[in-house]
C-alpha cells in the first residue's frame, strides 16, 4: 500500500484559497482548523531515530497521543493515549507502545528532542456510504527554538491513503502535483524538528571544547538552511524583496562553507551539491538584480529635474515586465524536483550525522586545519587582488576583489566558534571599511550598467525624454563611482596594515583548541 505523501506548499494560493480548491476539486470535506503541539521524543543517543523510528507526542486540543511510526513513511506501529509524557519505557510497560520501546531504548530516558507548534487544517473525503476514503491535512507549523523564538516551516500538505481506496489517493496526488504544482517531499517532519534542536545547542553556547565548536559550525549551516527554506514562502508570495535577499545570502554562505568543508569528504561527495547550489544562486540573480534596479531607480528619479521624472514611467514598465519573467524562472526552479532534492540531500547530510561526524574532533581533516587553510588562502588572494588597486583599476578586477572579501568574511564568520571570543570580530571590523568602499563602487557600476541596459531597450524616437533622463542618471552614478575609487586605496591599506596581517596570520596558526600543523 502507498504510504503518506507530503507536499511543500507554495504560496501561490492563500490557505483559504487552497482549502476551497481542495473541497472543490478533490471533493474533500473541511473538518476545520485545530491547534496542535508536537514533541519528538528520543534518547540522548537518538536510539529511535537510528532504528528509523519516530516517537511523536501529538496534542490536538485536549487529546494527547503518543505515536510510534516509521521515519519518512510514517507507518503507524503503535499509539497510546496518555495523560502524561512518559520518561522511561517501563512507565508504560503494560502498553504495546511500552513493549515496543523497551527492546530499543532499554532503560534510557526519553527526552524531548524537538518541539513544534502550530495549526493543522484537516480534510477528508467520503464515499457514498459515508466512509472516509482519503485523508488530507494542511500543516502550518513552527519549530519552537526557545520560549520566545521559533522558526516557521514551509507549510505542508499531507495526503494519507486509506487502505483499499487507492484510486482516490492516486487521483488526488496527480491533481496536487499537476494543478497546484506542489513538490512532493520524502522528508519527515522530524528532520526539520531535529534541525532546530541542533541550532539550540549553538544558541546556548554551552561548551568551549572542540566538539562544541564543531557543533556550533554545524548549527550555523543548519540555520542558513532553515533561513533559506523559511524565505521560500515569502519569495512565492512576493511580499517583500528582502525574502529573496535573505534566501540568497543563506545560499551564498552555504556555498562558501561547502568550498572549505569539501576537504573533509571524498572528492565526489560535495561537488554535485556545490554545483547545484551554484546553479540555484545563478538562477536567483536576475530577479534580485531587477529588484535592486527598480528600487534604485525609484530613489534616483528624485535626483532628476522635475521635467524628466515623468519620463521614467515606460522605464519602470519595462523593468517590471522583465522582473516578472525573471521571477517566473526562479519560481520554476524552486518548484522543481531538482530544488526539492537539493534541499533534501543537504538537510539529510546535516541532520543525518554525516557532516557532524566528518567535522568531529579526531577526524582525518581537523576542522582547525580546514579553517586555517581556508582563511589563509582567501586572505592571500585578497592581498594579491588588492595590490593592483588604483583609481584606474578595471571594474571587473574590483568586482573580483569584492567577491573574495565577501567569501573571506563568510569564512571568518563560519569558523568563528573555533577561535577565542572577539578575535574574529576585530578582523571583521577592519574588513568592514574596505567592503563598504567596494560595495559603493559596485553599486555605482551596477546601476550604470543597468541604466545603459534600460537605455538600449527604450525607443529613442518615441521616448526621447526618457533617454535624456537616463543619461542624467548615468552621469550622477559616474561621479559616485569616481569618488568611491578615490577612497578605496585608503580603505585597502587600512585593512592590510601590519597589525591586520598579524591578526590573520595568528588565526592561521592557532585556534583556541591548540595549534594547527
Amino acid at each position, binding site marked *: 500500500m502507498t504510504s503518506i505523501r507530503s507536499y511543500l506548499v507554495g504560496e501561490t494560493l492563500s490557505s483559504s484559497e487552497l482549502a476551497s480548491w481542495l473541497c472543490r476539486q478533490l471533493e474533500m470535506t473541511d473538518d476545520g482548523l485545530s491547534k496542535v503541539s508536537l514533541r519528538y521524543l528520543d534518547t540522548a543517543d537518538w536510539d529511535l531515530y537510528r532504528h528509523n523510528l519516530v516517537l511523536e507526542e501529538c496534542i490536538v486540543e485536549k487529546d494527547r497521543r503518543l505515536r510510534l511510526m516509521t521515519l519518512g513513511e510514517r507507518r503507524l506501529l*503503535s*499509539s*497510546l493515549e496518555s495523560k502524561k509524557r512518559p520518561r522511561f519505557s517501563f512507565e508504560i510497560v503494560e502498553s*504495546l507502545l511500552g513493549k515496543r520501546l523497551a527492546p530499543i531504548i532499554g532503560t534510557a530516558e526519553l527526552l524531548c528532542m524537538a518541539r513544534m507548534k502550530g495549526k493543522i487544517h484537516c480534510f477528508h473525503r467520503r464515499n457514498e*456510504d*459515508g*466512509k472516509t476514503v482519503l485523508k488530507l491535512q494542511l500543516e502550518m507549523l513552527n519549530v519552537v527554538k526557545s520560549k520566545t523564538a521559533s522558526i516557521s516551516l514551509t507549510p505542508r500538505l499531507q495526503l494519507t491513503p486509506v*487502505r*483499499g481506496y487507492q484510486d482516490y489517493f492516486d487521483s488526488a496526488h496527480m491533481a496536487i502535483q499537476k494543478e497546484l504544482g506542489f513538490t512532493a517531499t520524502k522528508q519527515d517532519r522530524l528532520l526539520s524538528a531535529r534541525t532546530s534542536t541542533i541550532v539550540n545547542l549553538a544558541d546556548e553556547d554551552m561548551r568551549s571544547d572542540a566538539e562544541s565548536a564543531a557543533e556550533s559550525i554545524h548549527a550555523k549551516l543548519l540555520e542558513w538552511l532553515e533561513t533559506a527554506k523559511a524565505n521560500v514562502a515569502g519569495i512565492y508570495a512576493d511580499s517583500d524583496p528582502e525574502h529573496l535577499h535573505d534566501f540568497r545570502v543563506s545560499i551564498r554562505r552555504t556555498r562558501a562553507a561547502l568550498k572549505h568543508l569539501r576537504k573533509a569528504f571524498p572528492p565526489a561527495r560535495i561537488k554535485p551539491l556545490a554545483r547545484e547550489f551554484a546553479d540555484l544562486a545563478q538562477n536567483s540573480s536576475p530577479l534580485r538584480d531587477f529588484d535592486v534596479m527598480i528600487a534604485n531607480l525609484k530613489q534616483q528619479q528624485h535626483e532628476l529635474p522635475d521635467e524628466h521624472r515623468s519620463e521614467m514611467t515606460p522605464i519602470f514598465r519595462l523593468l517590471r515586465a522583465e522582473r516578472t519573467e525573471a521571477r517566473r524562472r526562479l519560481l520554476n526552479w524552486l518548484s522543481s524536483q531538482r530544488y526539492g532534492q537539493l534541499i533534501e540531500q543537504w538537510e539529510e547530510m546535516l541532520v543525518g550525522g554525516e557532516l557532524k561526524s566528518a567535522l568531529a574532533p579526531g577526524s582525518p581533516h581537523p576542522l582547525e586545519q580546514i579553517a586555517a587553510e581556508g582563511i589563509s588562502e582567501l586572505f592571500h588572494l585578497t592581498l594579491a587582488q588588492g595590490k593592483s588597486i588604483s583609481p584606474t583599476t578595471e571594474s571587473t578586477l574590483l568586482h573580483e576583489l569584492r567577491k573574495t572579501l565577501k567569501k573571506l568574511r563568510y569564512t571568518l564568520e563560519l569558523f568563528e566558534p573555533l577561535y577565542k571570543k572577539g578575535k574574529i570580530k576585530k578582523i571583521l571590523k577592519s574588513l568592514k571599511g574596505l567592503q563598504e568602499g567596494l560595495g559603493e563602487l559596485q553599486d555605482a557600476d551596477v546601476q550604470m550598467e543597468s541604466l545603459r541596459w534600460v537605455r538600449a531597450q527604450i525607443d529613442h524616437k518615441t521616448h526621447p525624454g526618457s533617454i535624456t533622463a537616463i543619461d542624467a542618471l548615468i552621469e550622477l552614478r559616474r561621479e559616485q563611482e569616481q569618488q568611491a575609487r578615490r577612497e578605496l586605496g585608503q580603505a585597502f591599506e587600512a585593512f592590510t596594515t601590519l597589525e591586520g596581517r598579524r591578526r590573520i596570520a595568528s588565526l592561521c596558526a592557532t585556534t583556541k583548541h591548540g595549534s594547527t600543523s
Partner: protein
Amino acid sequence: MISIALHSAKGGVGKTAAAVNLAYLAAQHGYRTLLWDLDSQAATSFYLRVKPKIKGGGKALLKGKSDVDDLIKGTDFENLDLLPSDFSYRKFDVILDDAKDAGRLLRKRLKPLKNDYDAVFLDCPPGVSVLTEAVLDACTAILAPVIPTPLSLNAVSQLLDFRQRKGYTHSLYLPFYSMVDKRKSLHRGLIEHPPALLEGLLESHIPYASEVEQMGTKRAPVGAFAPRSRAAECYGALWTEVSRRLF
C-alpha cells in the same frame, strides 16, 4: 499476532457489536488491528461503512487465490482495518468441508497477516459448523457472548461439547455476559451465581443498552460516538480484561 474469534452458536447475542467495539478498543490502545467479517449477513461491514464485497469471492480468498492484502479496507479509525464480508461467505462451510483440514486452511490465510497486525478479530456467523471447527482450531481465543438466559446457556453447552469432542481445547474459551438487563431477576441471578458451565467467565458484562443499538444508525463503534456512555465503559472494562489475559 493474537487471533480472537467472537463466536456463539446462538444468534442475536451481541457478537458483532462486541467484535466491532473490542477491535476498535484494541486499535485505540495502539494495536494494529484487523477485523474479519466472516458472516455473510455483513453487519460488521455495515457498521464500519464498508461495502460487503470482496474481489474473487470467499472461495478464492479461502483457497489462497486472492491476496488477502488486496482485499483489506482501512476503516475511519486509526489502526483498525477490515476484511469485509461477501455474500459468497454463506458457502464457507462447503469450501471448508472440501478441504482436508479446515483449521489449517484458516491458519494459512491468517499467517501472512502477522507482520502487519498485532490482533485479528473474527466475527463469526452463528451456529456450529465447519467454519466453527476451523475457528476453534486456528484462533488463540474464542470470546463468547452469552445472554443470561437458559437458551443462550444451552448454546454454550452445545459448543463446549463440540469443542471437547473434536479436541479443540488448545484455544482459550472466554465467555462473557452480554445484553444484560439487570431489571430482570433471571439475569441478576445468573450473574450472581454463574453456572459451572461458564468456567473462565469474564467479570465484565455488556448491558442491554440503546447506544449499542445506535451503532446501526451511527455506523460506528460505541466508543466513537458515545465514549462516556455506560456501554462504552463496559466494553472498555471487557477490553481491559481480555487484553490482560491475551496480550
